[in-house]
């Protein structure tokens, strides 16, 4: 979120925007860390750590509230227009996407607790591998989105949008892969639902990352991309 041109004549406005910016950056880092931590608890079969991850989510919630407060204040005091206005509106949406992404990470941590505290047999490492790779993928999406947020590089946003397109294909192949596991060993059925829910959470996580990329396009170009096909978006950006 760099500001092109010189700063505002009201330097306090710039300060407030910077504060907002740093909240968003922190939330982005936190969401990615939560995801990584959650996946790691799954990998290490460490329910203790999983509880920590779940507790840490409150930090994201708090930042979300802080950001909303700050946005309300800025709108009331500065009456932003044009790019400032778009930025404020988009940031308001980005923080709620990040907060929800954090919720999805929490669900993964919840998976660890269910697998390793319950009486049932935890799923084999092989089955979980799909979750790891998907988590890695959506994590990359979000971190790419967040780095784009720093320099408002639309190329980066388009990249994330493309990754979002591929996410669907990936999901299909993962589900197919999973079904082969069930066919191999029917004992896996017990964990199957949980794993699908985990995959679903990760998919949502990726969706939030994609949304954030869309908001960044809105900041940069003032076009709303949420309900358009990615190809159409790319076209309209290139037109400008």
């Amino acid at each position, binding site marked *: 979120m760099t500001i092109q*041109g010189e700063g505002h004549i009201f330097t306090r406005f710039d300060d407030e925007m910077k504060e907002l910016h740093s909240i968003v950056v922190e939330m982005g880092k936190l969401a990615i860390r939560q995801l990584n931590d959650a996946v790691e608890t799954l990998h290490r079969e460490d329910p203790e750590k999983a509880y920590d991850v779940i507790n840490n989510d409150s930090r994201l919630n708090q930042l979300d509230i802080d950001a909303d407060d700050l946005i309300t204040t800025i709108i009331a005091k500065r009456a932003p227009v044009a790019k400032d206005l778009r930025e404020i509106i988009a940031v308001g949406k980005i923080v709620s996407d990040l907060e929800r992404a954090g919720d999805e990470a929490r669900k993964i941590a919840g998976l660890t607790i269910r697998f390793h505290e319950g009486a049932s047999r935890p799923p084999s490492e092989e089955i979980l591998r799909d979750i790891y790779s998907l988590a890695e993928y959506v994590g990359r999406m979000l971190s790419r989105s967040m780095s784009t947020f720093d320099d408002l590089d639309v190329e980066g946003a388009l990249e994330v949008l493309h990754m979002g397109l591929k996410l669907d294909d990936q999901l299909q192949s993962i589900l197919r892969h999973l079904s082969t596991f069930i066919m191999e060993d029917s004992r896996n059925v017990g964990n199957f639902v949980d794993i699908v829910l985990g995959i679903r959470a990760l998919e949502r996580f990726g969706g939030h990352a994609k949304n954030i990329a869309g908001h960044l396009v809105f900041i940069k170009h003032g076009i709303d991309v949420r309900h358009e096909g990615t190809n159409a978006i790319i076209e309209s950006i290139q037109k400008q």
Partner: protein
Amino acid sequence: MNQEASNSTSSLLEKDVVDNPDFVTVGTITADDAAMTCRNVDVHYGDKQAIYNVSVDIGRNEVIAMIGPSGCGKSTFLRCLNRMNDTIDICRVSGDIRLEGEDIYDRAMDIVLLRARVGMVFQKPNPFPKSVYDNVAYGVRLHGLTKTRAELDEVVEKSLKKAGLWNEVSDRLDKPGTGLSGGQQQRLCIARAIAISPEVILMDEPCSALDPIATAKIEELIDELREQYSIAIVTHSMQQAARVSQRTAYFHLGKLVEVGPTDDIFTKPTHGLTEGYITGRFG
């Protein structure tokens, strides 16, 4: 954020406009249904050029707001539209300005008639030092628009009602107009302008001397007047431009940088200078 680098960004943008003789206004200069059309208007004060090649339409039944930093020529341009600049000896206007297709700088155009058709409201409320009634009736009498006193009474009442002032002054029509509050005085000036049923009303920073409540009343009034008149308003308040206008024109150092629907200008302006100005980054 590197201050020097960013400074050069905006000065580059400015150079692109100011030092470029072939600069073309960004956005749509035409209105769907134009009451006035201005093409390639240049204004000189002696040797100094104040307006460079400005082309823009004043749309019928719409408010066009002209914004820009001080000295950008927006008031000068507004005053070309009813030839108010004629009163300044050294001022020369060239280009083509038409009111309903008639060239207003043509020899055949009578300046008195033009000013009856293009009314003006000024920055400082300037009621005549006469009664409220006479203020409104002055132009009507001057142009002989009514025959009987009853007709005149009716025009005065109607104009004051349109200006939203009737309820406040109906019991003191014979009191001096200068005794009203600033906001009331400005609405009186608007009533005076609409009493002669102009086609276009020009407003030169009409609220700059008023408090927020009086300003709000005038803005509400402007919005209502739009139904019957075409209005061009110069304002220093970008929020005001955003509130009252349908189209916004951004002037910078005598050039018209960008014109477009107000909704677009204030959410996603095209030109970097417009963006910088309305977001409060320079000016």
